């Protein structure tokens, strides 16, 4: 080893120093990353406890509001209004139905033919359509959630 010239010995010493400093830097980096990991994960990953608390918060929010995020009072008022409208339409349809059926019956009683005229056929088709509409409207009764039950009137 003593035969080595001084330049080669210098180069070896420098490379050792560099290796040592690089190793130190790598160790420092690993230590800093390990130390910083839990802190950064707190910001990203939600613990199960926090998820549960968030869910409770969500349910509490829906409990405070009515259907579709409306105020419960507004929702109830809206339902009442829709039901009024539906009932009014039902009565109107039934009035038309009765008028058409009466007209048809009178015309048939007056006529001498067993066949129906196109106008009478149109009235029968209109009666069929209105009856279908009445059935649909009655099955679409809107009930307030505060009622807690669905009122159904049985056969009378």
């Amino acid at each position: 080893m003593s035969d080595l010239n001084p330049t080669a010995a210098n180069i070896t010493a420098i490379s050792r120093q560099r290796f040592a400093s690089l190793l130190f830097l790598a160790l420092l980096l690993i230590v800093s990353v390990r130390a910083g990991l839990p802190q950064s994960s707190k910001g990203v990953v939600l613990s199960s406890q926090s998820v549960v608390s968030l869910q409770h918060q969500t349910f509490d929010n829906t409990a405070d509001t009515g259907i579709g995020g409306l105020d419960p009072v507004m929702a109830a008022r809206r339902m009442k209004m829709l039901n009024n409208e539906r009932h009014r339409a039902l009565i109107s349809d039934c009035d038309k139905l009765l008028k058409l059926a009466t007209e048809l019956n009178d015309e048939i009683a007056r006529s001498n033919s067993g066949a129906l005229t196109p106008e009478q056929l149109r009235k029968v088709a209109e009666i069929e359509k209105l009856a279908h509409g009445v059935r649909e409207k009655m099955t679409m009764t809107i009930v307030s959630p505060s009622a807690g039950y669905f009122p159904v009137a049985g056969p009378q």
Partner: protein
Amino acid sequence: MTPEEKRKLQVAQQCAGLLKLATDLKAQVDKSRKDELSVTVVRKAAELEQMAHKVRNGAALSTSNE
């Protein structure tokens, strides 16, 4: 009774049935409450719809036979 008379009587009976069902339906709708689903109304309306359909089909058949 001739077939024509028979047919006329049948149509008259069907139309009287339509009128009776329409009258019953109107009475039931008047009785029903706004926030209530009345099974009677639904049933009567279905009967009326079926009967009107029958009358229309019968008339169409008799027209095609003539």
